[in-house]
């Protein structure tokens, strides 16, 4: 739907060209839509839309291909980095981006992300961490915080029973194949602005052929967290960001 600006008015905010003109299936207040928009903005601004082959995950963002207007390949649960590896190696001129949630990347797909990073694949990995399995009804994820209630940790995550949250991005950052690892957040406008800068840098690094780049984005899940959208954003800023601290975790392009 296009709305013409009245005479004399100035357009200051538009839908990015690569963000499709359709309503998402996400719950009200969900952060996935924000991350989608940032990706669409960055790819559009960098002129990468027509050469991007992106890989869609299994989880809440399974329909990401309906919202970002680039070529997509669907991956089985957790396998996006392997699928993207295959694409990257046979299409050296393509720009390849993966989009995964925390269940997908940090549980079932642990081997695939570690080894794609270990090989230093020229990929840009977007990792949306909301600490829960949203699509299947709010079960505990590898990233769920200690004490956090979920439908499969009804009394709160207990380290003795459930183990500790896994800091995937810090783990990946120690690997020499990882050129860039950063953590953004969708908690507020300044955090979203910084997240966009991280995403842009992670895309530039692929184009420069420097190695594997990952941007974790801590996000909210109002329904899974049993909170209002506002409460969930406050928790994201005041609790989650204290555990998963936003910022650049490693940038090996600056070390050389």
């Amino acid at each position: 739907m296009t709305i013409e600006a009245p005479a004399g008015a100035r357009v200051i905010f538009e839908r990015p060209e690569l963000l499709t003109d359709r309503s998402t299936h996400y719950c009200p207040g969900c952060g996935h839509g924000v991350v989608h928009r940032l990706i669409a903005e960055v790819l559009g601004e960098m002129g990468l839309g027509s050469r991007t082959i992106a890989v869609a995950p299994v989880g809440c963002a399974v329909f990401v291909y309906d919202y970002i207007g680039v070529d997509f390949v669907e991956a089985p649960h957790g396998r996006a980095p392997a699928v993207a590896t295959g694409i990257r190696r046979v299409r050296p001129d393509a720009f390849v981006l993966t989009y995964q949630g925390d269940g997908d990347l940090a549980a079932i797909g642990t081997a695939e992300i570690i080894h794609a990073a270990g090989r230093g694949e020229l990929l840009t990995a977007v990792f949306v961490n909301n600490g829960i399995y949203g699509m299947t009804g709010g079960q505990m994820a590898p990233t769920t915080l200690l004490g956090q209630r979920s439908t499969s940790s009804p009394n709160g995550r207990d380290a003795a029973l459930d183990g500790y949250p896994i800091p995937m991005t810090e783990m990946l950052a120690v690997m020499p194949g990882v050129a860039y690892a950063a953590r953004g957040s969708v908690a507020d406008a300044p955090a979203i602005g910084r997240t966009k800068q991280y995403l842009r840098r992670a895309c530039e690094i692929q184009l420069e052929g420097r190695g594997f780049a990952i941007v974790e984005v801590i996000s909210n899940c109002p329904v899974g967290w049993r909170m209002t959208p506002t409460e969930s954003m406050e928790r994201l800023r005041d609790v989650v960001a204290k555990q998963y601290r936003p910022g650049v975790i490693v940038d090996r392009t600056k070390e050389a």
Partner: protein
Amino acid sequence: MTTATIPPTTLHHGHRVLMKGNEAMAEAAIRAGCDAYFGYPITPQAELLEWMARRMPEEGRVFIQAESELGAINMALGAAATGARVLVSSSSPGISLMAEGMSYMAGAEIPMVLVNVMRGGPGLGGIGPSQADYFQATKGHGHGDYRVPVLAPSSIGEAMALMADAFELAEKYRTPVFILADGTLGQAMEPVELQFREPPRLVAGWAAQGAEGRPPRVVKSMHLEPEDLEIHNRHLQAKFAEISAREVRWASESLEDADLVIVAYGTAARVARTAISHARDEGLRAGLFRPITLWPFPSAALAAVAARTRGILVVELSAGQMVEDVRLAVEGTIPVAFEGRTGGMVPTPDEVLEALRRLQAATAAGRTVSTVEVRP
């Protein structure tokens, strides 16, 4: 380090050379235009991966030793989803891990060729030759309603020829294709007349290659609405019906005057051939019916053969899997007996000959032969 048995530069189409099965299949895939190979080491197919590790970079093509069979099949999925010609190989336990990717590729209609150099199971089993993955290959492999063409070579030369055919079938029908070999075919060396052929490339008007100048494409298997998924499944089933109607292959030997027919594929067919020769020496007129496509199974052709013969003996390196398709094909019209060994054991020609004699005696006496006979 395993060294290749023959330098690739000396391999020319039509020449006769002594070559190992795994290496022959690998080189045949390269000459068929394979763009990318993904694998993981497992006995008894490791030489195929090793050949590719050396040869694919020489040809400027893609080779990756993946972190697992899951990694390998999903790298294949990604590469093939862009329209590349892709080969993956493994052996039985690794093939089980690849079932997930195969199901997605069947659903998303992504072409690829997967070689299974079968070993004995279940579980870790052993590393000897086996045909115990017939059910897995022909009845769907992964989850969901689907079939994939399954090609079963019985010699190294035939395995080379089928490699090009497999890529052609995969791309024509947009489907994964199995080449079902066994440890003997993979490990043995035999003289082969080199069969190289590069099938023409079709325009992959469905592939994800970057949406330059066209609307974006999505290569996917998901259809969340039941109505949509049923429409997709009907489309897949129509494709499977077309493959069943057009792509059935089999070979036969000495059937003209045969009273008894052995049905066997792969290595088992070679044992059967020797047994048939010995049987004929003693006046027992036996012939061979050898399915080359295990799916689609040559049911109609076998039913026509059954109408002219008195009994069938199925020989497999398994506890009896293809025998079920044989019985479905002949629909109880003649006796179907079974002779098989498992766990990496191969039936000897004498054992098969003895089974033929028992079948001959039973059919002569008018007895029904319906029990599945398996040796321990």
